[in-house]
């Protein structure tokens, strides 16, 4: 299904494009939010989970006798009691070459990472449940383990999956052109190795699941603060071997942050509803912060070995990147490394590309998508090399970029690789030179170089770093919206996807109101409940604006046509002479002739029981639209940072941060800027502060916020934002995603800036995050830090 853009709609609208404040805010500001653990569940029992203390071990025995005898404990479950649900939790994205290993909801014979579930205690409250965990005895036989891809790939390394031949999960190569030949003939070739470390999502609300089997309706009701309620419902239906309508999955109205980890599917989501059915009593499980550190999926750890070939003028001739990706103990999905593979070329014309992935199993909690999802690492590899080319040729890094950018008249631009959604990596629209110009118009490069030189003489080290990126967003397969005229004469928009702070209740009311041509006050948006709309995919991969947006637009436009038709029939006039005004449809120029939306609903939806209606009167005024994108739509952006590096302490101060972003048409600038600002903070965390450290054998070293530094208001400067608008031709709103663009370039731009600042020392910045130790090691040439 190919669609042409109707950008003209943007001009006629009254709500789209306006920076409306949010409908969600009042309840959230007054303590009236509806987060999962805030819901009045009443007498739900509470679960706590015993998790592995070993990165790799065989479980010889689990003794739960004492735990079961604790007063207030209802039941204790191990794999022995959960046979029917010991089934594979399949990865989201697979590959024919994947060294497939089964992931179970709860460990049976082996544990493969610290944090893997071993037993579930259900008790009258969480305090008792946690007491009971202390009474469970596990007899482990510790096995050798690996805490990094480097350890995993060593000859003779312990195997994460006993019986497997290798720790390699998948080895994939994508190529465009003839990279090997180009490397041999390129006038200049540079190479470097870059390491990016693990970090977490750190939604301030952890994961949570509650469930009750309703004996009256014979339906299992699951409350789950997931980003993807329909996905979880389908997984549960498959594992429990029931029809999809026998499960109602509800993502509460408010979810305390997502960022990717809540879009994955976890053992706890299988265990808790099943246990509720087994004990015939409602149960809830609320993840605590320690559990979040050791059991929610993470991301980022990759090691890139990059080679670039270029000519005398800095034109890119060939890019070769071979990278190791830490998959963790199981493959939850290959989306992250496959996104890395195709994000590498970014906004540049590169005739020859070799992108090679070696994904490894390690004895660490599995990795999966996290805001940025494989892109920050790819941008580090690419953009750090752009700076190295500039250094090598003695020209400005911005100039090297300019010479290589894809030009605005080259769209659609086929890169020659395949994107994560299975479609060819073809950029739909963009204006990369305008992004670069946007930065250069805000920074006087010549003046900065003068200031930098003068500062160096006083022992102050300033640096400028740039990073550009292209980001596939709005991926398939589809997303839906159901729009209804209610008996109160209002329009109810139901979305499948659940928000985690993105403001769906506001922005999709804007879209619906404009498509309907009605007062936005008549539109209500609800979301995240499988009983509202049968199918959906969920909130992830910056996909909702470009999938739900068009679905709401289409369904609401169709609903308008139905409403006008009913009014025409009732007013005995032609549809052409009618318009929606306030809460009624009026004859244009004769406002006395009108019929209210409530009356339309009463006649067309409620009807008169058993009575026929005129042939031309539409009935049941509701429309459902599923928008199916043909491919991803490609957002883009640029980050520029100016830093000051203290060579005594290793402290990095960000003096200026500029972010240019292009996500096509903007539905609500307030919300889009909010996404970019939040992403920017996350990117700074990844660049300088956040590090989920592990020992060589997989022991997590940072499992609290005393050890894992999340950025506070002291660390995150206010960036200077600017927008470039290149509408997508691939959806009727011309929109693209904006949820991750703030994060993606920051690790690379900060690293570029720090290396630029430290050029007098010849410092090489090859590892992130840039903690003081790493900065000082780069300045003084100290050996690499050991875990």
């Amino acid at each position, binding site marked *: 299904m190919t669609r042409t853009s109707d950008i003209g709609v943007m001009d006629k609208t009254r709500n789209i494009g306006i920076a409306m404040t949010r409908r969600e805010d009042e309840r*959230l*500001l*007054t303590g*009236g939010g509806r987060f999962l653990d805030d819901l009045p569940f009443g007498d739900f029992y509470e679960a706590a989970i015993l998790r592995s203390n070993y990165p790799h071990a065989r479980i010889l025995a689990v003794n739960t006798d*004492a735990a079961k005898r*604790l007063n207030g404990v209802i039941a204790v479950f191990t794999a022995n009691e959960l046979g029917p649900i010991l089934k594979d939790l399949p990865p989201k994205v697979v590959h024919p070459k994947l060294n497939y290993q089964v992931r179970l909801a709860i460990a049976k014979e082996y544990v493969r990472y610290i944090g893997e579930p071993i037993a579930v205690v259900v008790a009258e409250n969480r*305090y008792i449940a946690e007491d009971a965990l202390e009474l469970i005895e596990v007899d482990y036989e510790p096995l050798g383990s690996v805490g990094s891809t480097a350890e995993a790939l060593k000859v003779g390394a312990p195997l994460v999956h006993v019986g497997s031949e290798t720790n390699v999960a998948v080895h994939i190569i994508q190529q465009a052109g003839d990279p090997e030949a180009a490397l041999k003939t390129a006038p200049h070739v540079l190479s470097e190795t870059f390491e990016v470390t693990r970090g977490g999502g750190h939604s301030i609300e952890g994961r949570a699941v509650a469930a009750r089997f309703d004996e009256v309706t014979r339906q299992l009701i699951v409350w789950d603060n997931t980003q993807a309620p329909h996905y979880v419902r389908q997984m549960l239906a498959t594992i429990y071997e029931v029809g999809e309508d026998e499960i109602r999955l509800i993502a509460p109205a408010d979810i305390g942050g997502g960022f990717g980890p809540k879009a994955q599917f976890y053992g706890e989501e299988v265990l808790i509803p099943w246990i509720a059915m087994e004990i015939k009593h409602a149960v809830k499980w609320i993840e*605590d912060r320690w559990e979040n550190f050791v059991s929610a999926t993470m991301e980022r750890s990759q090691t890139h070995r990059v080679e670039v070939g270029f000519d005398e003028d800095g034109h890119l001739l060939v890019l070769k990147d071979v990278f190791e990706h830490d998959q963790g103990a199981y493959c939850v999905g290959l989306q992250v490394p496959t996104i890395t593979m195709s994000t590498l070329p970014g906004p540049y014309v590169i005739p020859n590309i070799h992108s090679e992935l070696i994904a490894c199993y390690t004895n660490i909690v599995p990795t999966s998508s996290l805001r940025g999802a494989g892109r920050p690492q790819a941008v580090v590899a690419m953009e750090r090399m752009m700076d190295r080319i500039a250094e090598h040729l003695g020209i400005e890094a911005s100039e090297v970029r300019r010479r290589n950018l894809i030009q605005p008249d080259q769209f659609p631009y086929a890169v020659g690789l395949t994107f994560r959604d299975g479609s060819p990596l073809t950029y739909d629209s963009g204006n990369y030179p305008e992004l670069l110009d946007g930065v250069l118009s805000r920074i006087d490069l010549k003046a900065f170089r003068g200031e930098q030189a003068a500062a160096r003489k006083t022992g102050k080290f300033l640096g400028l770093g740039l990073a550009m990126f292209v980001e596939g967003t709005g991926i398939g397969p589809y997303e839906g919206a159901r729009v209804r005229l209610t008996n109160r004469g209002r329009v109810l928009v139901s979305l499948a996807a659940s928000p985690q702070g993105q*403001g769906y209740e506001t922005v999709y009311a804007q879209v619906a109101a404009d498509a309907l041509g009605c007062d936005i006050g008549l539109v209500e948006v609800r979301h995240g409940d499988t009983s509202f709309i049968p199918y959906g995919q969920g909130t992830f991969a910056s996909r909702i604006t470009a999938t739900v947006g068009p679905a709401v637009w289409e369904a609401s436009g169709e609903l308008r046509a139905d409403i006008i038709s009913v009014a025409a029939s009732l007013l005995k006039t032609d549809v052409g002479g009618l318009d929606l005004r306030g809460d009624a449809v009026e004859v244009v120029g004769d406002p006395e002739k009108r019929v209210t939306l409530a009356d339309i609903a009463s006649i067309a939806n409620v009807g008169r029981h058993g009575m026929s209606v005129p042939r031309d009167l539409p009935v049941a005024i509701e429309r459902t639209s599923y928008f199916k994108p043909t491919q991803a739509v490609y957002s883009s952006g640029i980050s520029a940072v100016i830093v000051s590096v203290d060579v005594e302490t290793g402290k990095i101060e960000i003096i200026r941060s500029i972010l240019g972003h292009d996500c096509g048409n903007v539905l609500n600038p307030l919300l889009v800027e909010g996404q970019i600002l939040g992403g920017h903070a996350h990117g700074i965390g990844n660049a300088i502060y956040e590090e989920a450290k592990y020992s060589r054998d997989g022991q997590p070293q940072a499992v609290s916020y005393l050890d894992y530094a999340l950025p506070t208001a*002291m660390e995150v400067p206010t960036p200077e934002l600017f927008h470039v608008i290149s509408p997508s031709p691939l959806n009727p709103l011309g929109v693209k995603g904006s949820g991750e663009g703030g994060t993606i370039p920051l690790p690379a731009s900060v690293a570029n800036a720090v290396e630029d600042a430290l050029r007098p020392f010849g410092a090489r910045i090859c590892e992130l995050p840039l903690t003081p130790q790493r900065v000082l090691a780069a300045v003084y040439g100290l050996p690499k830090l050991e875990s």
Partner: protein
Amino acid sequence: MSETIDIDPIESKLWITLTINGSKGSYFVEQRLTLADFLRKEVGLVGTHLGCEHGSCGACTIIMDDKAVRSCLLLAVQADGASIETVEGLARDGALTPLQEAFRAHHALQCGYCTSGFLLSLVARLREGPIETEAEARESLSGNICRCTGYTGMVSALLSLSNSNGEDGEKP
């Protein structure tokens, strides 16, 4: 049947009397119950949220006897005799306070989970004096963690409060 184990006998409960958002009440609570869990589970004030339960993220911040405190690090029994303020007590008669209004106007919240902790930290801070500079705003926000907003909206919200005070001539 083996003997049951009882870690938490009824004798471990104590009576406490405290004032919460202006209302005085007495409660019979377990000694090990945290103040946060007490407010959420026993009193039903679920607007106070738990983010880390080790005193770092600040989501559970409330005001106890005029000081912003982490309710995850206190036991309910330690609040005996205290006066507690939570997010539910801020807006009166359905009207948002100027701070809450400024948060909305400046998109200072996204998911909203950490918001009540920020609000209570700031209410306590603003009682000590106005927040007039960006540096003061950032300092006053630095005890809490937000993962969604990047803090920019909160800084703007705080500065808008001091600006409007200035315009109204109310600044000390």
